[in-house]
């Protein structure tokens, strides 16, 4: 099993410092490329590699970068931004990468900024990630002293908490010191991003892949996946499994291999009932889908999404209604309030589910809930927050129909 992004990380929470990173071949790609290869050629390598965004959307990174106007076409400030907000419940991969090997991220930033001709970079990291922030700041100081950042300025911006900050245009507003409310697209951030300037926003894991692609080539990267999709992926498993944690495996590894072989299967006395394969914004998959490859296309074909690739396992001793209520409460609380369906619809869902949990649910509530995904699904709201919320609600209502009905008819939670 080839480890790429996590090969330097021992998992004990210790940071790889500059010297250790350099010994492992670190910053070799910067020396190979900066000032030697044309920026457009770096973009091309990344495009050819098949790298897809790891922030949840799976958008091809090369294509995103190609939409950035050239410096000749758009002079003036240009920004490269790393999205390290990571507030999607069930997701803990970016923390691992930043705490363990911050220089890998910095090298990725230097290369990416070179490719899109940005002169300033920001890492937008959630404020609760104290250890990651400290690791990044120490690494930036080391890299600056070693002269590997060139002329690039890298700021670490510690956020002050709202899930919506992870949505890339809301993130831009937050970086500008405003409320984190999403912006209309178009214009794309590449055209009008931070302070109206050309801007790229990429996820931590996406950026960490860049040094390896530049060093070893697009073909090598494509060969790392087991199916049609490229690279390795930082998967995560949480819930009642024997070895919850972070696992770097080939893109396209099956859910079963991830959960049973790597996470060690279910704890004694518990059975797997369903999973959310890629964080709170993805739809439930049942046991019969465990052989599905964890890839963007594989998960889509199975009726869910790869999302962040961090799997939440629901066991047979946990009330699925309570689990879904917890998820919906999160989304209702974190809605930024900008568009009406999300602002009013999500609290409505939350209230209905709360009532069901305490035995106050009515039969007619089930129809109201079933109607919600059609009103807050993709295309119905300003951004992706509410559609993300609807994924687990829509699939959960179907998969756990009996549990919902029992809550309503017997007016108690069987698990309470």
């Amino acid at each position: 099993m080839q480890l790429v992004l996590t090969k330097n990380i021992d998992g004990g929470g210790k940071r790889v410092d500059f010297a250790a990173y350099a010994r492992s071949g670190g910053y070799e790609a910067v020396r190979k490329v900066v000032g030697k290869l044309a920026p457009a050629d770096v973009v091309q390598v990344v495009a050819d590699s098949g790298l897809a965004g790891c922030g949840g959307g799976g958008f091809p990174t090369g294509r995103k970068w190609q939409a950035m106007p050239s410096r000749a076409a758009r002079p003036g400030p240009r920004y490269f931004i790393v999205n390290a907000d990571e507030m999607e419940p069930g997701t803990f991969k970016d923390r691992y990468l930043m705490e363990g090997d911050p220089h890998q991220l910095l090298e990725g930033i230097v290369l990416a900024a070179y490719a899109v001709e940005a002169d300033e970079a920001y890492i937008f990291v959630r404020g609760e990630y104290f250890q990651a922030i400290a690791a990044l700041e120490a690494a930036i100081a080391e890299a600056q002293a070693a002269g590997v950042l060139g002329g690039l300025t890298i700021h670490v911006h510690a956020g002050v908490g709202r899930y919506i900050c992870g949505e890339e245009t809301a993130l831009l507003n937050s970086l500008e010191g405003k409320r984190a409310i999403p912006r209309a697209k178009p214009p794309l951030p590449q055209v009008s991003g931070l302070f109206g300037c050309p801007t790229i926003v990429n996820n931590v894991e996406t950026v960490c892949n860049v040094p390896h692609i530049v060093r070893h080539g697009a073909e090598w990267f494509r060969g790392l996946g087991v199916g049609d999709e490229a690279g390795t992926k930082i998967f995560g498993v949480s819930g009642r499994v024997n070895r919850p944690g972070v696992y770097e495996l080939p893109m396209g590894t099956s859910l079963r291999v991830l959960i049973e072989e790597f996470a060690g299967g279910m704890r004694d006395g518990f059975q797997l009932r369903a999973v959310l394969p890629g964080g709170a914004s993805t739809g439930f998959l049942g046991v019969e889908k465990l052989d599905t490859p964890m890839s963007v296309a594989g998960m889509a074909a199975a009726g869910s999404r790869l999302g962040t690739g961090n799997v939440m396992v629901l066991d047979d001793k946990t009330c699925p209604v309570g689990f879904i209520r917890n998820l919906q409460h999160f989304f209702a609380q974190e809605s930024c309030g900008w568009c009406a369906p999300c602002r009013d619809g999500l609290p409505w869902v939350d209230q209905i589910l709360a009532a069901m949990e305490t035995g106050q649910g009515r039969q007619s509530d089930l129809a109201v809930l079933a109607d919600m995904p059609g009103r807050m699904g993709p295309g119905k709201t300003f951004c992706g927050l509410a559609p993300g919320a609807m994924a687990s609600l829509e699939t959960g209502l179907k998969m756990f129909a009996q549990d919902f009905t029992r809550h309503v008819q017997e007016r108690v939670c069987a698990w309470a």
Partner: protein
Amino acid sequence: MLTGEDFSARGPAAAIDCLRALQKERGYISDETLAEAAAILQMPVAVLDEVATFYNLIFREPVGKNVILLCDSAVCWMLGREALQSRIFERLGIAPGETTADGQYTLLPVVCLGACDRAPVLLVGETLHGHLDAAGVNKLLDGAA
């Protein structure tokens, strides 16, 4: 963070950095601090308050010396975060949103702390504690006291 930087040079764009820095120094953003920050940033107080009140981690009310952020998202819920909350209440007499009378502790719920593989988890100040149960909360509070 942009430490040591002159916030006034960046104007309203520095609002969040400035509030965060002031809160670190003073614990929370009082009306007086808010007005002070608005003057530094050269922006109306009401506009700055709009920003301050939007974010979960900017405190507009006093908090205790130690802020406990207890994860209330799905994995921690599944693996027993309610027991942690109950034990904190038994020991300190505070429910989420409350501060102990001696001003030592404030308990706040927080969304997924990105440590679900160590659920249930909480932060005390800047330190993350994982794999907790009620006994672990006891140990934590005894150690910190």
